[in-house]
């Protein structure tokens, strides 16, 4: 039973990584950039919800909606102002560094506005805990919600990217921007759309992250952002199911590492497993192994 229970814990934690990784991988796969500010958009989303609920007294649903809208706008604005001018830069590292600048900017703005003190997140999602096997296994409501959200978002994104026209356009843009343009794809708006979706999902991720681990500071998004990056790579860059599976596995490994090896070196264990997996499968679990035509 303890094994099952640990597995459940791992999946709960992993589902949080997964939900962040889904938004991350969207931008990562299409715009071909590591958006280091993604984690901070998550933080902004969480702060918006918290402020809307506690200070403005909005209903939870309305607050979430507000956060999604604001984060979407934020994502689009960031892309237009800070990333778009660098789209044709001679190295794609340039935009990576700018993303880091944006990350600092969001953190420090939040610091000035909300202060440094950690705040507890309020209960926005109220789903009862599931009790199984006479209380031997309990699954928290938020976990169920997160996993459900993950699956829904994963399916929706997969469908969107593969089966809809804007989705196809996104893939074309990720392959070859100029050629996509020649096909009539508006590259700017496609990338904006990508950021809009990614950032909207960040707001949801912020909600779920802070509901599961109810603490919030201006730096709350940074570490989960990195872990989501790890999860996205783990699953295979640009692969939507990969992001989800990568996230969940990351969580499970972390929990098993703590449970069966040592809680002091759990981080090292997670990363060591990641390395081993990548050495065996160099493009991640679901990454396509693109052979270069010589």
């Amino acid at each position, binding site marked *: 039973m303890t094994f099952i229970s640990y597995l459940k814990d791992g999946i709960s934690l992993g589902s949080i990584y997964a939900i962040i990784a889904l938004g991350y991988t969207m931008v990562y796969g299409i715009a071909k950039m590591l958006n280091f500010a993604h984690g901070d958009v998550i933080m902004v989303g969480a702060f918006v919800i918290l402020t809307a609920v506690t200070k403005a007294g909005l209903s939870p649903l309305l607050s979430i909606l507000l956060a999604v809208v604001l984060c979407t706008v934020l994502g689009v604005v960031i892309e237009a102002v800070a990333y778009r001018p660098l789209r044709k830069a001679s190295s794609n590292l340039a935009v990576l560094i700018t993303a880091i600048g944006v990350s600092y900017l969001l953190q420090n703005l939040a610091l000035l506005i909300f202060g440094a003190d950690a705040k507890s997140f309020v209960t926005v999602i109220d789903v009862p805990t599931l009790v199984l096997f006479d209380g031997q296994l309990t699954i928290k409501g938020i976990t169920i919600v997160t996993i459900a959200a993950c699956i829904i978002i994963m399916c929706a994104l997969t469908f969107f990217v593969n089966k809809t*026209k804007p989705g*196809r*356009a996104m*893939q*074309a843009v990720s*392959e*070859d921007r*100029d*050629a*996509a*343009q*020649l*096909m*009539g*794809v*508006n*590259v700017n708006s496609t990338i904006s759309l990508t950021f809009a979706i990614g950032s909207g999902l960040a707001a949801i991720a912020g909600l779920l992250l802070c509901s599961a681990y109810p603490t919030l500071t201006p730096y709350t998004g940074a570490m989960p952002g990195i872990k989501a990056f790890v999860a996205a790579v783990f699953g295979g860059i640009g692969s939507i199911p990969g992001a989800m599976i990568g996230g969940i596995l990351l969580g499970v490994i972390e929990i098993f590492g703590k449970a069966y090896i040592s809680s002091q070196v759990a981080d090292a264990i997670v990363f060591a497993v990641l390395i081993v997996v990548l050495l065996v499968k160099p493009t991640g679990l679901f990454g*396509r192994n*693109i*052979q270069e*035509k010589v």
Partner: protein
Amino acid sequence: MAMLEIKDLEVFYGVIQAIKGISFEVNEGEVVALIGANGAGKTTTLQTITGLLSPKKGSILFEGQELTKVPAHKIVSLGMAHVPEGRRVFAQFTVYQNLLMGAYTRKDKNEIEASLAEVYKRFPRLEERKNQTAGTLSGGEQQMLAMGRALMSKPRIILMDEPSMGLSPILVNEIFDIIQSVSASGTTVLLVEQNAKKALSIADRAYVLETGKIVKEGKAETLLNDDSIKKAYLGE
């Protein structure tokens, strides 16, 4: 009025001027060839017309509309398609998906299906390979795909950048036949070619580009028999 009219076009890469004030026109139904040595600026010209590059000076009128003010992605729906140099197929898409991207701006499913059938008829190889990822196609196959993809938008004018590059002799002939049949079906063609002989033999008119300037123009037959052209571009 000409279908496509380029006036005093100047294009820069940073501080380097690649196009130094060229003017030319393409009339409806014509095949116009643009020939010139390596680095003359042929590709640059085509890319400027379809908005991938923006000119510093000059105007590009397509059916009376100023293209320099139209964003690149809107150009294809005006009826202009571009087969880019180096093919630029979507490497991870299948052949079929590439062709569908060509019809990105079109809505009517049945018509798209019809175009697809037409392209497959023109390029049976593409139908054979429709589920292969484009990146693993041979060079010639990719070239066919690039042309097929451009045709999927049902363009009124098609710009082709060295479509015969890397093709087998039989395919070169085929491609030129296809260009002719495309032209015969009413599509105007602006053709950039290194294979000047072939290009001139199917073109109505031609322009010769040298280091960013047009140095000669005229009827294709005339140029085909022009001594200096023969010497410089036909290898005779």
